[in-house]
């Protein structure tokens, strides 16, 4: 029975908000979805990385090729030097017997008497026969003879040596007559030359094969080496190193650093461009304008009823809260009007606020009249009515 997998609960990651605006970010970056597809930017960066790695790899292969070629050239020089030294040595030490270590051990294992006999016979025979090859070849035969015929007089050993030497000489002559004429004589020098070729080929061929395997096409370095102008230019910028000590950073490192710097700057540029576009959108934001545009008519619509309600509220509150300072205004003073009768003949009313003064002037002749008095002919103030 198949078991159903429990659905994993998605994490509720809040979306970032920048200045009140929700920012849409690639869900892959937010970790919201499994990374099934790749971001195009990731692909581009990866392809750029791959290209860099490929370039670096080819440069390193070229470097290895050059190093190995230099090593081959150095080995060839050393071999030639050795050959020259060998030729010199051979021409100088022709009298010194060349006995191998194994041969010396064989001689050392012989009993002292037999050892002396072998050595003396070898020395005597060598002094007689100047041929180096045969003299050297006789020593193992003498050791063998001494081992198989211990106690034999030395004269017999000499006879044996002579017989063997003659046989060797006959064999060599026979071989020379049978064998086709060779271009090169079979001496030690020729042997060494042959060996040198073998050694050189033995070292060089596997290297070349390995190089050919790793470098199917002509590399950057080969192209540089084949093109003299390009090579000079590369030398000038220090691609092949210099006699000065290295400072720790090669051209490749510098190139990589340059590419890395360019990439960082590109990323920064993208970031700034994104920020600029956000700011441009922000600067074009008309929400506040819209709000302001809507606020004015809304205020106008509400102004009528709100104003009325507020006035009513004020009136209602005023009846409950009367400030002590606000007192009813004092009643105006009563108006008094009096009737004036002057001796000059003027007669008419005159109004005063409050009680009239004791004396007043006649508006026609200016004579002083006593309020409430009686008219007198001798110029005393006339009595006026107190008015109504």
């Amino acid at each position, binding site marked *: 029975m198949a078991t159903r997998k429990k659905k994993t609960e998605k994490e509720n990651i809040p979306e970032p908000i920048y200045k009140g605006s929700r920012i849409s970010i690639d869900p892959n970056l937010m970790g919201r979805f499994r990374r099934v597809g790749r971001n195009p930017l990731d692909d581009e960066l990866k392809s750029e990385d791959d290209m860099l790695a490929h370039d670096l790899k080819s440069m390193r292969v070229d470097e290895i090729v050059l190093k190995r070629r230099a090593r081959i050239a150095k080995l060839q020089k050393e071999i030639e030097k050795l050959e020259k030294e060998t030729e010199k040595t051979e021409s100088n030490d022709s009298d010194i017997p060349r006995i191998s270590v194994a041969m010396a051990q064989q001689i050392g294992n012989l009993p002292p008497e037999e050892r002396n006999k072998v050595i003396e016979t070898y020395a005597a025979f060598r002094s007689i026969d100047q041929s180096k090859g045969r003299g050297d070849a006789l020593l193992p035969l003498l050791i063998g003879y001494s081992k198989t015929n211990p106690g034999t007089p030395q004269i017999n050993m000499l006879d044996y040596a002579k017989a063997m030497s003659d046989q060797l000489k006959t064999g060599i002559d026979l071989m020379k007559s049978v064998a086709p004429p060779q271009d090169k004589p079979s001496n030690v020098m020729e042997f060494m030359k042959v060996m040198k070729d073998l050694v050189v080929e033995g070292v060089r061929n596997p290297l070349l094969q390995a190089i050919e395997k790793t470098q199917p096409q002509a590399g950057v370095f080969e192209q540089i080496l084949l093109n003299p102008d390009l090579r000079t230019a590369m030398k000038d910028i220090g691609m092949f190193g210099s006699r000065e000590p290295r400072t720790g950073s090669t051209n490749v490192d510098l190139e990589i650093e340059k590419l890395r710097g360019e990439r960082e*700057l590109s990323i920064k540029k993208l970031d700034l461009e994104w920020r600029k576009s956000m700011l441009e959108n922000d600067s074009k934001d008309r929400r506040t304008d819209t709000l302001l545009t809507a606020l004015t008519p809304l*205020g106008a619509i509400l*102004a009528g009823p709100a104003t009325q309600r507020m006035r009513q509220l004020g009136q209602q*509150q005023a009846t409950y809260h009367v400030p002590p300072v606000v007192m009813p205004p004092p009643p105006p003073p009563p108006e008094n009007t009096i009737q004036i009768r002057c001796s000059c003949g003027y007669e008419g009313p005159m109004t005063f606020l409050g009680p009239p003064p004791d004396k007043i002037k006649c508006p026609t002749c200016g004579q002083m009249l006593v309020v409430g008095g009686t008219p007198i002919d001798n110029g005393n103030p006339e009595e006026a009515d107190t008015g109504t």
Partner: protein
Amino acid sequence: MTMETLRKQIQELESDIAKLEENIRIKKAEKATVAAQVQARIFLESIFAPYMEGLCDVWGLSPEEGLRVLINEKASLDMIANDNREALTEFMSQPEVRVITALASPLGNVQDDWIRDKMTVLLEVMEKIRPAMANIITTTPGGQDWFYESLKGLRNLLFGKPQINIEKP
């Protein structure tokens, strides 16, 4: 693309961004000022002035005289309103008032400092539309304090949430 080109482009972008940020800052400040002035005008024309006129109608004073009396008495608007809670409750239940309080509900969360800042804007606008009243508030001793206390009281009265101001050390 060379490093130099990239550097130049980045410098240009940084310069553009700095200009844009400055423009946005200026624009936002301008818009905020305009918005504050519009709001202040609405408040003064629709709330403050009619209320004062209603009070002074009954008292038999001009709004300016009534304002001076209230300032001298240190009777802020909320204090007066609290004297007649029934009238206030009836007022708050009116549909028009409910719409206004709903629209202006963010004002219920504003801090006292914000009110003090906006009071300046209110006085500036008042000087334009009601210069006599603005003059009374600014010239009468204690006038601005009375206005500030009245605005705070109205916030608490209309939105029912007295603010707790925690004093920062």
